[in-house]
């Protein structure tokens, strides 16, 4: 298998972006290619893997060809990968596989989503289409509802509390203060987060990520090409992916995401690394309870201890055991669905190259991305390192 590295990474700011879909994607591509140390033009890449749920409909068919054309890659084989919020996590895996298998030498992987140019009604529709429409949704559930069911069950089984979730919210908002690309750059106190308006009991407004526009892009290259382009490639050490029942009620447990556990196991095994080796993890915290579950499912803390991990500040940047969502995570950096997985890789690229500025994780050698689709029906996990050893 060919070794694969990230050689460039860039993104737009997340939030209410003034540009259209193609503008955001082009901005992310320009940012990404400008980060490459050597000379590489978009038109010279072998393939494009683009994650997007095509939120709002818009250019629903042939999205990737449309966007590639608008970013200097007309004629390059391109495809859209859709796995709800895990779309670009899976695009990353497909891009990695294309190079690892020897089929390609250089590929563009990215994601894009425009979510804030719709009426509230249409926005609600698109926010719900990735769940189980026939059974869950018609029983009143939206994603805040499904994650609220997980939270209440975790509290019941393991004694976690809403205060534990508040700690996650406060941490991620604090982390985002140092991220110029973050959607919500505001200091949120414990008292404010604890007193948030209930959205889906027990989850409040401060447990939920915002609805963000954004695009993110990375360039992957085979080892030979990567070494020609840069002295500081970020190596993709392991890739894992898994799926689970679409509907929450079909799963044996509400307090663990089996897809996360499976994908993480694959990525750890392939990389020869484990959770204890991680300096940072960008995990999928669409809701605070999702981060709590991720810390358990990724092995950062034992099953049932996610509440304590949060309470004890174990995920705080440069304070805890492993920096969790040093970018602010989906909670505060933002969550432009199809761009989120690629955006996590952009953060790891910057951290492992020591280019994260004031949010730099000290001595960062190994990082992980964890990207979940819906309430856990799909998941992609990747492990990255500054070195191949």
């Amino acid at each position, binding site marked *: 298998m060919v070794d694969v590295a990230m050689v460039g990474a860039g993104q737009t700011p997340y939030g209410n972006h003034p540009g259209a879909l193609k503008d955001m994607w082009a901005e992310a591509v320009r940012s990404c290619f400008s980060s490459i140390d050597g000379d590489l033009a978009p038109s010279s890449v072998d393939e494009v893997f683009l994650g997007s749920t095509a939120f709002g409909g818009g250019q629903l068919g042939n999205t990737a060809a449309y966007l590639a054309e608008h970013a200097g890659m007309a004629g390059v084989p391109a495809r859209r990968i859709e796995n709800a919020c895990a779309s670009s996590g899976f695009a990353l895996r497909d891009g990695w596989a294309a190079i690892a298998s020897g089929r390609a030498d250089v590929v563009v992987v990215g994601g894009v989503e425009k979510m804030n140019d719709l009426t509230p009604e*249409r926005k*609600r529709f698109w926010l719900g289409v990735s769940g189980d*429409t*026939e059974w869950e949704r*018609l029983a009143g*559930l939206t994603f805040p*509802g499904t994650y609220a069911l997980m939270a209440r069950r975790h509290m019941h089984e393991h004694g976690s509390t809403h205060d534990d979730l508040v700690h996650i919210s406060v941490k991620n908002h604090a982390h985002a203060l140092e991220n110029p690309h973050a959607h919500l750059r505001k200091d949120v106190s414990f008292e404010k987060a604890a007193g948030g308006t209930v959205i*889906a009991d027990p989850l409040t407004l401060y447990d939920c990520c915002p609805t963000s526009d954004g695009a993110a892009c990375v360039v992957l290259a085979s080892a030979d090409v990567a070494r020609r382009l840069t002295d500081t490639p970020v190596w993709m050490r392991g890739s894992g992916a898994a799926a689970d029942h679409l509907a929450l009620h079909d799963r044996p447990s509400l307090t663990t995401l089996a897809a996360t556990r499976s994908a993480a196991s694959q990525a750890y095994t392939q990389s020869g690394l484990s959770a204890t080796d991680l300096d940072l993890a960008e995990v999928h915290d669409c809701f605070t309870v999702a981060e709590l579950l991720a810390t358990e499912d990724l092995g950062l803390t034992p099953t049932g201890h996610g509440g304590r991990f949060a309470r004890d500040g174990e995920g705080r940047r440069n304070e805890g055991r492993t920096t969790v969502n040093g970018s602010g995570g989906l909670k505060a950096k933002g969550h432009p669905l199809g761009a989120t997985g690629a955006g996590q890789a952009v953060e790891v690229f910057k951290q492992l190259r020591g280019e994260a500025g004031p949010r730099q994780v000290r001595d960062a050698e190994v990082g992980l991305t964890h990207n979940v689709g819906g309430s856990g029906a799909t998941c992609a996990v990747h492990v990255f390192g500054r070195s191949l050893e």
Partner: protein
Amino acid sequence: MILAAGEFGVAVHHLDDGVVVASRFHVDERRVFGPDEDVVTMIIDALEAWHRKGHGTSVAVPLNDHELPVVQASLPWLQIGDDADAVLHRMKHGAAVLPRNHDFDAHAVSVDPNLRIVMDLDDHTAIHAAWDRELKETNVSQGAYVSGQVHDLGMEARLGMRAQAGPMWPPRGATSDGSAPTQGPLLTTTARVVSWTKLIAAGCPSEFAIRAPFLGGLTSMILAFDQGPSGVFLHVDGFPSQVTIDDTMALVVRRVYAQDGVLRYGRKAVSPSA
């Protein structure tokens, strides 16, 4: 006749050879339908209450074309026969299943005042006006579209609780060995709460956007059946909806939403003693 017991979300009076049910909802002294009740749900409630007491399976049930498929899908055991010994009687905001020769005076039925759920007139009017709006064919839901065909294909499982062998529920297209699923048992109409949440009105799926504000949001829960499968269900509208994990809930047929001018029914959860 005073209906003094609450059972599966309706007021009930059991006789030796039949049953009378009525809505518990009242506006002042007037009995009304609850927020998700109607004639069809009352007919099904009466037939289920009658069946639970072991009276049989054969009933003379006069139904129109709109009611028939919903009742048949909800009650897989029901044998509709014009000359059956038991007869379904319609009454205002209620129904009864009684022997053919029973001298039944529907006008003499009332619900014990202690059992009544009193609704504000304005709230009652608003909810039923919302249903009228939702039912108009011009109302195009922004929800995740479940077509009429897909919905109808799921009715036997959704209303009748018919599982596939395994048991597996809701239904699948193939089993893990690639073969076609075979018919399984009927799931029980009681199940245990695994988890629950209450969504604020603004957080509800857009299919419910018209009514949710008048209902103060929606309560939804995962229920586990003793036979193995689990499912997610709304709480019946209008009843106190605070539930606790491990509570036992009953599943009754109620209106869920309307799409393309057609009412869609489903099973909703309520305390068996409600």
